[in-house]
């Protein structure tokens, strides 16, 4: 295991840093060697990518905080327009300078303004001889802003002519970012997923004060055994661990088993965790409901999950409209005559073809159909006469707003509108019953 070692920083700080970022030592030392000493110019832009919860944000934050490097940390989802983003960076810069002085409101509409104000801020904070780090979290959002934002951030060092490094954090690879026009390629750095050993190590670190570390580590081992197949998200795993720990401790609290009795504890917790995987993990029931269930020792069967409530009550004609829409979406037009007309002439012997068609139609997904066809099918599947009243038409519209139908190509209002049916066969079956 490589120990962190850098001549520019005090050893104590490095040691603390090492203890804070388990399993990410190599990445941190890599970053440190890129950063160099405080006054050194660093690489203008660094691009860090890796899967969800592989520690990108956490590592950057701890690194910058522990070593007390001047930095600005911004989440691009939160500041969704370029203006908000730039202003936020400036505000953070200013507020760092003097805590007492109330930050004045900054107006920054263009990148040009930003560069000017940025220079001023750097001077006012006397940061000329240090590297300033701007970290942009969830950088993939930058692509949706104006076209000049991303290239400009990549060349910020050059544009501002000051010692600054922009760090982009993202979950997707750099190739998906690269703009067409020539831009500065950042230094890319990959954070690999945590392995199961890493997860075990990280999760076991925060054991509750009442229990020993070994006891908790054994629990985490069981937990990972159940959940590792479906979930590698560290945050989610930690949440689940906290939710189910009280259940794990139950035999110990009651005195039926001691802390070393792993097998007994495993027997107690394993079905419980499996149940949790089907309910809490999928957010079928909420974690607070789950906790209450644990306390009451009730069966989760009493609590119906979200997907248990699939049944929907619809007015009479809405049901038929939906069924008609489904038929229109999945049947080819030429079969209409055969299916819905009483005197349709001979049925050609195309049984083999028909069967083949049907499967493929469901695989192909719904096809758009005009309004007239929908109404024609409706008239033929409803037993009694249906008057084309305003209510019927408004029902079609309300089905569209409920997202059971969707409208296709609404550019020409005079042309008959075209729809698609978006519900599944199971749903239609449930309605048709």
């Amino acid at each position, binding site marked *: 295991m490589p120990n962190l070692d850098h001549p520019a920083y005090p050893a104590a700080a490095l040691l603390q840093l090492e203890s804070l970022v388990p399993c990410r030592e190599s990445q941190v030392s890599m970053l440190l060697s890129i950063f160099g000493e405080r006054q050194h110019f660093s690489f203008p832009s660094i691009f860090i990518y890796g899967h969800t919860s592989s520690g990108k944000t956490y590592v950057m934050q701890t690194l910058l905080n522990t070593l007390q490097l001047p930095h600005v940390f911004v989440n691009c989802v939160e500041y969704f327009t370029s203006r908000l983003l730039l202003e936020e960076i400036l505000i953070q810069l200013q507020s760092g300078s003097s805590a007492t002085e109330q930050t004045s409101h900054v107006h920054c509409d263009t990148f040009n303004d930003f560069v000017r104000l940025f220079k001023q801020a750097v001077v006012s904070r006397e940061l000329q001889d240090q590297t300033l780090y701007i970290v942009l979290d969830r950088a993939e959002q930058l692509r949706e802003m104006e076209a000049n934002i991303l290239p400009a951030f990549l060349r910020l060092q050059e544009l501002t002519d000051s010692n600054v490094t922009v760090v982009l954090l993202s979950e997707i690879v750099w190739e998906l970012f690269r703009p067409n026009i020539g831009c500065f390629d950042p230094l890319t750095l990959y954070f690999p997923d945590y392995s199961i050993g890493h997860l075990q190590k990280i999760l076991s670190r925060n054991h509750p004060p009442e229990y020993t570390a070994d006891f908790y580590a054994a629990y985490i081992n069981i937990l990972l055994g159940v959940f590792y197949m479906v979930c590698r998200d560290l945050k989610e795993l930690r949440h689940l661990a906290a939710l189910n720990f009280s259940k794990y401790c139950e035999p110990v609290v009651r005195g039926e088993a001691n802390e070393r009795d792993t097998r007994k504890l495993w027997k107690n917790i394993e079905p419980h965790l499996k149940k949790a995987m089907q309910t809490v993990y999928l957010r079928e029931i909420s974690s*607070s409901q789950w906790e209450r269930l644990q306390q009451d020792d009730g069966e989760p069967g009493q609590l119906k999950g979200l997907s248990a409530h699939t049944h929907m009550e619809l007015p009479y004609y809405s049901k038929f409209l939906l069924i008609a829409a489904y038929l229109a979406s999945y049947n080819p037009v030429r079969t209409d005559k055969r299916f819905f007309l009483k005197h349709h002439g001979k049925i050609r012997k195309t049984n083999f073809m028909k069967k083949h068609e049907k499967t493929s139609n469901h695989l192909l997904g719904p096809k758009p159909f005009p309004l007239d066809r929908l109404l024609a099918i409706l008239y033929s599947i409803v037993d009694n006469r249906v008057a084309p009243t305003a209510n019927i038409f408004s029902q079609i519209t309300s089905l569209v707003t409920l997202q059971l139908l969707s409208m296709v190509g609404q550019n020409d209002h005079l042309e008959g509108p075209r729809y698609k049916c978006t519900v599944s066969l199971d749903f239609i079956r449930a309605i048709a019953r």
Partner: protein
Amino acid sequence: GCFVFKPSVKKRKLSQRTAHDSRNGNDDSEGTELRFFTCQSLWNQIKLETEKVQEDLNKQLLDNLVNFLSRSHSEFQEKTNEWTCRMKFREIPTAPLVLGVNVTDHEMTFRSLSDLLQNNITPYVALLEAKDCPGIKNLMQKLMGQLMNCYIDVDSMEDEDYVQVSQKRIRCSMSSLIKWYKNVTEKTDSETPSQKRTSSSTYWQSPPVVVVFKDMESFTTKVLQDFIVISSQHIHELPLVLIFGIATSPMIIHRLLPHSVSSLLCIELFQSLSCKEHLSTIIDKLLLSDQFPFKLGAKVLQVLINIFLYHDFSVQNFIKGFQLCIVEHFYSQPLSVLCCQQVDFKKRVNSLSHDQCESIRRLPSFRRYVEKQESEKQIALLTTDNFLKEETQKLLEDLHVYHDNYVSVLRCLHVFTSSLPKYPLGKQIRDLHCACLENPVWETEEYESSLQLARMLNKSDLVSMVQQCVEILLSSSGKEFDKTVEKLKEFLTQFQNLEEAFQERDVSLSSQKELQKKTDLYHLQKTLLELKESRRSKKLTKFEMLRFEVVDYIDSLVRKYLVPAEHRTLHEILYFNTASVLREHLNAAPRTALHTALNNPHWYLKNQALKCDGGSISNKAPDICIVYKLHLECGRLINLVDWLEAFSTVVMAAEEPNADTASSDQVDDIIHARFIRAVSELELLGFIKPSKQKTDHVARLTWGGC
């Protein structure tokens, strides 16, 4: 389209109420005014009543929600130091609210919800609609606007200017929202002791911020995801609670949000009352009560219920329809002056004018009544106004009493029919009500079959039903039921005696008890066979005799009290039964109306000259009608030149076949202009559009056009 020709009754009524009213026949302005006021006060009463009912219905749901909100919040505050709490991920408490597909009713629920929250939990409630939030930016703007305004409401008015000025240049980001929240909570904290407002002191120290997404389905995925991601990062500083209004099923959450986002939420489902139950309660409280003198006839009720069940499931629309019935009744029926509370109508009958008496005499139900009387009384009724008034009073009173009794007996009958297998008379009391109002129910086959089934009820069911009936009749206001109640109680005691008798006689009883005890299949079959044999051999047990008696008695009650309203004298005054008007207004058919207007202009314009027969095209009709009729004969593509030719032929037809105009091929400029105007009007209405396939052709857009 159709509404162009028929302005809604309400508007007409309000604007022309005091003006001369041609449909009345008589123009005493006092009568109409009185009618107007009666109508208004009646409607106000009904409105109050419905609001009360709906509040009661929503109470359960709202209470649960409030519980949830307070709980989610308290958990945040209490155990901040515990280990589990530190380790646990802070989720945003979320309450999906499944409200059913009747979107029109949701507004009311949300309104009462936000009122309740603002009164009890938090002043910070924001209601968002999808149409206002196409992007995250708009959503934040809307949210902050609503939250900061409500802050003004709570606080004193002095700050208003300041807040409004700052709001303009405030940045629409979460951080400014958090700053605002901190400011506000600190301020109220410091001010609460001095503030006299009780409302603000009932809130907690840091009340949650509730954001309601009214129509979850219509929000775009991106907006929702972004908002949830952003707010989950700040949940420590801003206690946010989300409420999703869902019309379809809660599965929509999983469809809209990926797992990475939905794992940020702590979702607890809430479900509102089904709209059908809601309607049943409304019908029960509005129609089957003696509070309101106004009643609906069978056909009208059927129309309203059909619209509800077949089209929209909207209770709000049902009530609107009911309101329309009231307005239409008071507007079209001059005698509806008498449709008022029992206290008033005596006075009103006495002050009737001669014309009004005449119109009473013209009522068909009254004429039928007169014909049945003796000749002297007939003459008196037809000539003496005072005698007529007395008689009217009596009849109206009878009508009210009839309704009270009707309702009680209807409920009794419903107790029986609602427990029969397959529900021959309908499961809901509204079905039964419709059936009974329309025609004598005892003449129908369904009634016959349900009586048959009732004769096969078992004893415990029968006894409990009779008991229920007794309770219903006791609680009713009618005085006639003393005897009936006595009779039913007698039945009950007879049943009891029967039981005692059974206990003494242990022959059949023991076998029955054995039946209950034994689980062995063989023995069970054996005893069952024995029982069957014994039953066959006996003619009728005492119990069966009694059962027949009870059913027959109920049957006699039905025949006596459930006479259709239309058979009663003077029913026209209290019962509104013109279903066709209602259907026209509530279930409009725009395509049909447009077709009628263009094809048969006489229908709407009422001009004698336009009356035409069959398929011929009259040249006196408006140009657009002629053009329309001609275009019906064409295929998908219409040649404009041919069309113009045909048009000019029709228009010229009636004018004298003048020698020079007929001979010249040149079409008159004026006719040409008229034609072009008519065609462009048709285009405006969406019947045709210019075609790109052929020049000087237009394409038909409606009704297939081959």
